[in-house]
């Protein structure tokens, strides 16, 4: 066990290094970025202001030196200042983070809560009516562009029926107490739904195939022979084993959720990290772009690490390398 954890941790070191290199090169080698000549580039810019910018951001130094300097600041969690409003990048991220956590956390929770029972029931009767219907529905969800679903839901539920607010975090003058919580929830409903369904389709298919495979195995048959009910055999024996591949993939769901967040936050004017990232891309706010992409990739790496180790705890075969 310890050997597996150590090996997994050691393998994560070059990956982390690779992430920092990709992030750095992404911004510094792109034409039009401050690093290279090109339209809108600072290297083309002339005059004292441009000279000042170059000195300030070290753009006149060679690439490896800039990378070293940037890294030495990153390890101290110093992300620099935003080009746009000159506030510390960490401050801007801290403002947007709670909104994104609320949205993504809700979506992840909803996806797991709906997808797991769905997958277990469908996998319990492969090719049964429920399995076929749910497979068709999930397939349609899987092919549905998030922004289209968002626009349709807005048109139907917010514009036509007026059941839910069109966009925003909360009303302009939110009511106090319990009514205020309801107000927040009604604003959360549509964006959370849009972010949920993609992950839901993914998890449900995974659980279904795991359960369907386990259902036919000897140990489930043995459990039934020992007198376990269908239900017990399904949930206690088949589902538990289907849980391991799910565990290893939860980490990788994180970047998918953040991708979806960019679109959903933009449509529903939700001031989170996705919105912040898109804004900084459009305004070429390099320090924010660097910080957000590094942060999201590093958190994903940690999450995959954690879920791999969790899978190894749950299933000895993962540790031995018999099952990946």
């Amino acid at each position: 066990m310890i050997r597996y954890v150590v090996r997994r941790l050691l393998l994560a070191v070059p990956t982390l290094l690779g992430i920092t290199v990709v992030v750095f090169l992404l911004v510094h080698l792109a034409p039009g970025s401050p690093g290279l000549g090109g339209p809108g580039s600072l290297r083309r810019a002339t005059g004292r202001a441009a000279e000042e910018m170059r000195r300030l951001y070290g753009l006149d130094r060679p690439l490896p030196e800039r990378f070293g300097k940037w890294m030495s600041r990153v390890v101290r969690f110093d992300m620099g200042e935003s080009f746009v409003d000159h506030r510390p990048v960490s401050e801007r991220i801290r403002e947007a983070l709670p909104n994104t956590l609320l949205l993504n956390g809700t979506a992840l929770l909803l996806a797991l809560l709906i997808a797991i029972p769905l997958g277990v029931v469908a996998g319990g009767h492969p090719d049964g009516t429920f399995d076929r219907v749910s497979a068709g529905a999930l397939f349609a969800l899987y092919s549905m562009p998030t922004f289209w679903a968002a626009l349709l839901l807005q048109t139907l539920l917010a514009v036509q029926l007026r059941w839910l607010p069109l966009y925003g975090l909360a009303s302009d003058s939110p009511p106090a107490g319990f009514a205020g919580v309801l107000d927040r929830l009604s604003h959360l409903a549509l964006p959370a739904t849009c972010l949920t369904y993609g992950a839901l389709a993914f998890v449900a298919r995974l659980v279904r195939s795991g359960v369907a495979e386990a259902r036919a195995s000897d140990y489930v048959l043995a459990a039934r022979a020992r007198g376990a009910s269908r239900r017990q055999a399904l949930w206690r024996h088949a589902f538990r084993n289907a849980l391991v591949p799910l565990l290893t993939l939860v980490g990788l769901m994180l970047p998918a959720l953040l991708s979806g967040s960019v679109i959903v936050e933009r449509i529903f004017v939700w001031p989170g990290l996705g919105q912040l990232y898109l804004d900084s891309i459009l305004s070429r706010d390099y320090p924010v772009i660097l910080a957000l992409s590094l942060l999201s990739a590093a958190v994903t790496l940690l999450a995959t690490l954690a879920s791999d180790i969790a899978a190894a705890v749950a299933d000895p075969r993962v540790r031995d390398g018999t099952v990946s």
Partner: protein
Amino acid sequence: MSARRSWIARLPGTGRVALAVVVLLWIVAACTPLFRERAREIRLAERLLPPSAAHPFGTDDLGRDLLARIVAATPISLTIGIVSAAVSLIVGFAVGATAGWFGGVPDLLLSRAIEVVLCFPLLFLLLAIAAFLPPSPWTIIAAIGLTTWPGDARYARAEILKMRELGYAHAARTMGATAPRILIRHLLPNALPPLIVSAAFGVGWSILAEASLSFLGVGLPGPATSWGGILAAAPTYILEAWWIALFPGIALFLTVSAYNLLAEGLRTALSEGGGRA
């Protein structure tokens, strides 16, 4: 198995319907020159008209006919989808096959590279590449191809790992064939079925990715818009013109589901026969 049934005959019913839809879409794409004039014709007096006999899908914020615009955008979305998926497949196979064939240190390094790309939210990378390079279809294709290859690479690596100990791989090596020759001439044809399935899913995925980019405003420069580009106007007019949101989305949804269903069907068709007949 009966001697050599064609892959179309082995597709399940849904897969055949999907194939028909894909063919139909390409026929529509071939007819677009007839619609290009109308798609670009701006009539401000006719802006934001609801669907009617003259404009079956309504008009947009500049009075352009929405049906003509959607048809005119078809070849753009389809081509970008196919070419990006092909780029992704080629890069993915090169990386995955190299890792699987050589093993050891190259495998360790290339597997880290795959892991690095997978750690980023895909849209973060796509947006950065698409926004920083000069706007053109090639930029979009490069952005999508260069970010989605890790999936293909994983499949290719797994396939090559399985095959490298097979008799014919050993035989080719004994006869002095070089690694690229063995990989491309001998192993690639046999690794193809799962890669084709992965590529078909990749087409649907790439079309979605391109639409997302254009929707967010870093896609193709006008007037050559794609479906995502048409949809970009929808949030602004959501209160008065629902048709701008509905119809381009239907085209997008139909296309992506057709490719995904075709991929699913190919998976069944190609696995039942078990490699080459």
